[in-house]
C-alpha cells in the first residue's frame, strides 16, 4: 500500500476549515462585543450627569423632576416602580402560566392541545402597542369602575398587562421543560400506583424545575423590559405607592421614563445624560436578573443529581419546599378528590388565558374591521391618517424587518454554528454565551436609545431605514442564535459521528448533514424574530420611523413609516382617528399573528417529518 497522504490538499483543506471556524467565531463574538459596546456607550453618555448629581443622589433620590425650577434627578421611585410592576406581573403570570403549562403538557387531550398551545403562543405575537392600546382604552376604564377609584391608570393595570404579556413565554418554555421530562419518570411513578396528580406534582414538576425557573425568568425579563404598554397604562407618576401595597396607585417605570422623555429632551442637557443614567440602571437590573437566572438554573441542575459534585450552596431545601407546596395535600381529602380539585384549577388557568386572548383579539377585530378597505391597505395616509390608508406603513414595516433579518440571520446562524459545533466549554465560550443571554434580556427601549445615540446621532445616519434595520437586527439576534442552536442541538450526535467517521471534514459535516435537518428549526426562529421585529415600537421610535410619507423610501437613508409607530401616533397624537387606530391595530395584528402562525405551522410540520 502506498502512502496516500496528500499534504498539499490536506493543507488547503485545513486552511479552509480554519477560515470557516474563524468566521463563525467572529460572528459569535459579535453578540458579546455588542453588549459591552452598548453598555460602554450608555455609560459614557451617562457620565456627564455626575458632574451635577452624585451617583448616590441619582440612585436614591426620591424625586424625579428634571424640569422643575430646581431640577431633581432621583430615580428611586422609578426603580421601585419597575420592580413593583414586575413583581405584580409575576404574581399574576407565574401561577397562571405554570398551571396552563402543566395542563397543556399533561392533561390536555392532543386535540385540545393542538389548538390551545398555538393560540397561547399567539399571545406572544400581539405587538406591545396593541396591548397598550387595549389597556389604555379598556383595562384602565374597567379597573376604575370595578374598584371605584378616580383613575384606573395604576400599578395594577401595568401588572395585569405585563403579566398577560409574559404568559406566552412562561407557558411555552415551561411546557417544553415538562415535555422533555423523560416519559420513563411518568411511567415509573404511575406503575407504583401514584395518581396522575401525584405523578405531576411530585415527579414531573420537580424534574422540570430548572426549565420552569428559566421560563419564569424569561417572562420576568420581558416584563421588566417592556415600554410601550407600560407607558400607556401606569399613569407614569414618579411616586412610590403609599402605602407600598397600594395597587391602585399610579407608578412610573424606568422604561416608561425613557420612552416618554427621550424624544423631547435637549441633546446634551443634564436631563439627557440623566436619561442615559436611567438606561444604564435599567440595563444593570436586567443583567442582574439574567445572571441570577443563569446561576439559579445551574444550581438546580447541579442539584438534580446528574452532576458529579455537590455544591456548597444547594437549592435543595427550596426545591423540596416547592414540591411540597405543589403537593399541598389537605389530608382529609381523598386522593381522587385532590386530583379532581387540582385538575379543575389547572383547566381554569388555561381557560383564563384563552379567555384573555379571546377578549383582546375580539375587541380589536370587532372595532378594526370597519376600517379595513382596499383603499386603507393600498393608499398613503391623508389628513394625518384620519383618511387614506396605511400602505407606506405596511411596506415600511416589511423593509425594516427584511433588513433586520438580513443583518441578523448570517451573524446569528454563524454564532449558533460556532457555539454548538465548534466549542463545548472554556472561558471564551462562556463569555460569549453570557453575552448572548444578556443581549437577549436587553430591553428593546435600550436598543432604541443606543440606536438613537450611536447610529442616528454619533454616526449621523439620521432617522433612517438603515438605523432602524440595524437596531432591530441587534434586537432579534439573540432569538435567532438561540433557536438555531436549539435546532442544531436536536440533530443527534450520532449523525455527526457518522459523517466524521466517513472522513468528512468538520465543515463538510456541518454543512451537509447537520444544517439541512436544522433548517425548519432555524426558519421557526427566523419567523419568530420577524414577528417580534414587526411588532416593536420602542427600537424604531427614535431611529427609523416617520409619521407620514406618500412615497416609499428609495434609499437606506430615508426614514420610513411603520405600522406599530403609526398606531402609537394615531392613538396618542391624532385626535379623531379612532377607526383608523383600530384598523391599523388589526392590520398589525394580522401581520404579526400571521407570521407567528406560519412559524407554528412550520414547527408542527417539521416535528412530524423529522424523527430521529
Amino acid at each position, binding site marked *: 500500500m502506498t502512502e496516500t497522504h496528500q499534504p498539499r490538499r490536506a493543507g488547503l483543506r485545513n486552511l479552509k476549515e480554519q477560515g470557516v471556524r474563524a468566521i463563525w467565531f467572529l460572528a459569535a463574538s459579535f453578540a458579546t462585543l455588542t453588549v459591552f459596546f452598548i453598555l460602554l456607550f450608555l455609560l459614557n453618555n451617562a457620565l456627564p450627569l455626575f458632574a451635577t448629581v452624585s451617583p448616590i443622589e441619582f440612585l436614591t433620590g426620591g*424625586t*424625579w*423632576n*428634571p*424640569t*422643575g*425650577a430646581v431640577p431633581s434627578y432621583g430615580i428611586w421611585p422609578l426603580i421601585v416602580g419597575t420592580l413593583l410592576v414586575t413583581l405584580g406581573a409575576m404574581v399574576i403570570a407565574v401561577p397562571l402560566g405554570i398551571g396552563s403549562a402543566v395542563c397543556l403538557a399533561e392533561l390536555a387531550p392532543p386535540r385540545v392541545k393542538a389548538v390551545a398551545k398555538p393560540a397561547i403562543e399567539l399571545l406572544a405575537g400581539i405587538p406591545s402597542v396593541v396591548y397598550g392600546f387595549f389597556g*389604555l*382604552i379598556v383595562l*384602565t*376604564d374597567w379597573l376604575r369602575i370595578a374598584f371605584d377609584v*378616580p*383613575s*384606573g*391608570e395604576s400599578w395594577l393595570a401595568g401588572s395585569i398587562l405585563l403579566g398577560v404579556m409574559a404568559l406566552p413565554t412562561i407557558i411555552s418554555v415551561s411546557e417544553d421543560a415538562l415535555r422533555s421530562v423523560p416519559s420513563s419518570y411518568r411511567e415509573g411513578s404511575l406503575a407504583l400506583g401514584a395518581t396522575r396528580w401525584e405523578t405531576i406534582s411530585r415527579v414531573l414538576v420537580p424534574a422540570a424545575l430548572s426549565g420552569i425557573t428559566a421560563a419564569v425568568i424569561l417572562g420576568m425579563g420581558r416584563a421588566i423590559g417592556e415600554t410601550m404598554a407600560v*407607558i400607556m397604562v401606569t*399613569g*407614569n*407618576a*414618579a*411616586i412610590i405607592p403609599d402605602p407600598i401595597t397600594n395597587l391602585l*396607585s*399610579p407608578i*412610573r417605570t424606568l422604561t416608561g421614563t425613557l*420612552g*416618554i*422623555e*427621550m*424624544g*423631547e*429632551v*435637549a*441633546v*446634551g*442637557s443634564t*436631563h439627557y445624560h440623566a436619561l442615559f443614567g436611567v438606561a444604564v440602571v435599567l440595563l444593570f437590573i436586567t443583567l442582574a436578573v439574567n445572571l441570577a437566572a443563569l446561576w439559579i438554573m445551574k444550581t438546580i441542575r447541579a442539584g438534580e443529581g446528574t452532576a458529579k459534585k455537590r455544591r456548597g450552596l444547594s437549592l435543595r431545601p427550596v426545591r423540596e419546599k416547592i414540591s411540597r407546596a405543589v403537593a399541598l395535600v389537605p389530608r382529609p381529602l381523598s386522593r381522587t378528590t385532590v386530583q379532581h380539585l387540582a385538575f379543575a384549577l389547572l383547566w381554569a388557568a388555561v381557560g383564563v388565558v384563552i379567555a384573555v386572548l379571546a377578549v383582546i383579539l375580539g375587541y380589536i377585530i370587532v372595532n378594526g374591521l370597519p376600517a379595513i378597505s382596499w383603499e386603507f391597505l393600498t393608499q398613503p395616509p*391623508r*389628513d*394625518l391618517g384620519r383618511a387614506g390608508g396605511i400602505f407606506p406603513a405596511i411596506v415600511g414595516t416589511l423593509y425594516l424587518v427584511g433588513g433586520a433579518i438580513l443583518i441578523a440571520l448570517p451573524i446569528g446562524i454563524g454564532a449558533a454554528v460556532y457555539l454548538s459545533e465548534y466549542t463545548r466549554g472554556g472561558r471564551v465560550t462562556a463569555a460569549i454565551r453570557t453575552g448572548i443571554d444578556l443581549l437577549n434580556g436587553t430591553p428593546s427601549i435600550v436598543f432604541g436609545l443606543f440606536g438613537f445615540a450611536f447610529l*442616528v*446621532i454619533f454616526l*449621523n445616519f*439620521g*432617522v433612517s431605514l*438603515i438605523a432602524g434595520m440595524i437596531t432591530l437586527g441587534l434586537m432579534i439576534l439573540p432569538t435567532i442564535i438561540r433557536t438555531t442552536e436549539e435546532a442544531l442541538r436536536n440533530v443527534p450526535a450520532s449523525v455527526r459521528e457518522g459523517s466524521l467517521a466517513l472522513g468528512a471534514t468538520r465543515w463538510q459535516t456541518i454543512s451537509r448533514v447537520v444544517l439541512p435537518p436544522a433548517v425548519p428549526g432555524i426558519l421557526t426562529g427566523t419567523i419568530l424574530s420577524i414577528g417580534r421585529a414587526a411588532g416593536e415600537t420602542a427600537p424604531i421610535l*427614535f431611529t427609523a420611523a*416617520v*409619521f*407620514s*410619507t406618500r*412615497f416609499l423610501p428609495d434609499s*437606506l*437613508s*430615508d426614514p420610513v413609516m411603520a405600522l406599530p409607530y403609526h398606531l402609537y*401616533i394615531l*392613538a*396618542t*397624537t391624532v*385626535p*379623531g382617528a379612532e377607526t383608523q387606530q383600530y384598523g391599523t391595530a388589526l392590520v398589525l395584528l394580522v401581520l404579526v399573528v400571521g407570521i407567528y402562525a406560519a412559524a407554528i405551522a412550520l414547527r408542527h410540520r417539521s416535528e412530524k417529518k423529522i424523527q430521529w
Partner: protein
Amino acid sequence: MGNGDKPAQPPETRESISVAGSTTVLPIAQLTADLFMDTNPKTEIQVSGGGSSVGIQAVGGGTADIGMASRDLKDPEKTKFPDLVSHVVARDGIALIVHPSNTVGPLTIAEVKAIYKGETVNWNKVGGPDETIVVVGRDSASGTREFFHDAVMEKEDFVATQLEKNSNGAVQQTVAQTPGAIGYVGLGYLDRSVKTVPIEVNGTPVEPSVATVTGGEYPIARSLNMFTDGEPTGVAQEYLEFILSPDGQRIVEEEGFVPVQ
C-alpha cells in the same frame, strides 16, 4: 449609502426635504406639506415626530431640513447650534379640559395652579361635584408642560401624583374616560369627548378659542416654531413661505391653532 448609486435613481429625481420634531406642531407641518406637495408634485416633504428636542437636534445636526418645536431654544441648544433661525408658524392656546360630565364652572389661574400643585384635591372646593380630582399633565420633557410650568405654575412643582402623558392625544384620551380628571392640551385637541374649562380673567370667564387667543384675552398661549439651519433656501424656503401664506394659515386655523398673519 455610497455616492455611486446615482444612476439607479429615476431621472426626474424628486426634491425632498425632511421636517422633524414636536408632535404639537406636527399636524400643521403634515397637512401643509400635503397641500404643498399636491401643488408641487416634484417635491417631497417627510414629516416626522420625535419631539421638540429631536427636531432641534435633527436640524442642527443636519439630518433634517426643518426642526419643529413647541418651545424656544434652551441654552445648551443655543450654544451648540448658534446658527438656528426660528420661524413662528402659529400660536397655540392651551385649554384646560375636564370630563364632559363635570359641572365645574370657570376657574382662575390661581385655582388651576392650586389643583396642579395638589393643594386642591376635590372638585367641590372649586364649585364642582364632590369628586376626587385626577390631575393629568404632560411628561417632563414636553414643551407644552414647560410652557404651562412657566405660565400657570409660575415655576412651582407639580403634584407628584399627577398622571404624566407623553402627548396631547393621550391627555385628551385619559380625560375623556376619567370623570374626575383635569388636563391641558392645545386647542387642536378639543372635541366633544372632553369639556373645556373657561379661565376667569379679571372676573370674566374666557373660553379658549382662536378668537380669544388672537384677541389676546385668553391668557395661556404660546408660539409654535420651525427652525432652519441658517436662512432657508430652496424647497424649505418655499415650504415655509407656503405655511405663512393665507392657504397655509387656513390650515393652521382648521387644525385649531391660531394663525400668526
